[in-house]
């Protein structure tokens, strides 16, 4: 009798351990996959405006700066702008046409969905290049011709730095 009860106890402990491990593993998997990492389409060629680390951080400020300079001041001397970004970062679907922001594969959306940051740019701006215009991702490094103006790049980087003094100071 005593032997039987001890055997039952051992079994019970084993079942608890294995079950717990299974549940834990299951929970772990669920946590990892509940929010999928964004499949950000890889860019071709050299970084054209600034390094990816700078772009990730400062692109909203650059775009906001550019919009005031172009629209309100009428200064179109900068070779970089949203239209250029859209032209080179366009993602093509199976049929070879660039996807709009309505597709989760859109370059901007892939990351913004993950970060849960809503962008209003495409309420007014086209989210893909005009048919036959702009270089989609498979357009190759030629897509960057005309965009890599070192002055404009340096200016945008400098602007991005001035916009975030509290961050550069740290």
């Amino acid at each position, binding site marked *: 009798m005593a032997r039987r009860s001890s055997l039952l106890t051992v079994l019970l402990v084993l079942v608890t351990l294995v079950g717990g491990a299974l549940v834990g593993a299951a929970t772990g998997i669920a946590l990892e996959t509940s929010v999928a990492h964004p499949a950000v389409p890889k860019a071709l060629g050299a970084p054209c405006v600034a390094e990816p680390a700078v772009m990730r*951080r400062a692109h909203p400020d650059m775009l906001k700066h550019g919009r005031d300079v172009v629209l309100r001041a009428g200064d179109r*001397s900068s070779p970089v702008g949203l239209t250029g970004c859209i032209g080179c970062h366009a993602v093509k679907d199976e049929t070879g046409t660039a996807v709009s922001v309505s597709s989760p594969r859109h370059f901007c959306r892939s990351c913004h969905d993950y970060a849960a940051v809503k962008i209003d740019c495409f309420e007014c701006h086209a989210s893909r290049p005009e048919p036959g215009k702009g270089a989609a991702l498979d357009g190759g490094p030629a897509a960057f011709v005309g965009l890599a103006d070192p*002055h404009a790049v340096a200016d945008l980087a400098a602007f991005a730095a001035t916009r975030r003094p509290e961050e550069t100071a740290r």
Partner: protein
Amino acid sequence: MTSACSSTRPGCGSACTCPTPATAEPVDAERRGFLAGSAAVAVTTLAGGAMLTLWPESSEAAGADPKKRWGLLIDVSKCADGCTACVDACSTENGWAKPTSQTDPQWIRKVTLRNPTTGVTKSAPVMCQHCDNPPCVDVCPTTASFKRADGIVLVDKHRCIGCRYCMMACPYKARSFVHAPLEDQKPHAPRGLGTVEACTLCTHRVDRGRAPACVEACASAGRAMLFGDVADPASEIAEAIAARPTTRIRGDLGFDPGVRYAEL
């Protein structure tokens, strides 16, 4: 919250409401490491370019020139009744579809005038008159309506809240409201749901030394439209205005429109 606001951030006034919650400390520590990295890259890029001015120096004057005043002269006697070349060109250039209802956007329209006494009819295009004292700018609560230094009146859709005060204020019915979502707009003419829009005098072309699309189309149709800098007495348009009587629609309102009509 207020102590966080009184930091060295430029342009941070007393009414500032910067959200800097104390609970965000652990996240901040991580962010700082990342940001230090990106700042270093930014500085490196800067050193490589060795330029501190905001935009590259160029022979062209950057931005709208305050010495200029862009305007139009429309010779109504050359504007044929059935011709819509200017309207078609604007629609194609700026990506607005031909209106099918009164609420559809319409940047430029052909208006037919008839003198009921004599029966004489005339046809002329009417678009934003790019006033010097624009009432749309006066009434705009968000400074979305604005006049560029060179006299072109525009809507900054980044600021437009769609209140449509400007549409009420404009005596020319020049502005439209976008009621439906749009996709695949022209890259040079962004337009979207919930904002007001109007003729931009094709700023994207004017800034690059070209004439507006309507004027270019009219040049191969009736040759009724003339575009240029009315502030420059030597310009073709200024000479044409000086040489013959011209009129402005509702000139009595004192808005000083930039669009003039001859033979109206």
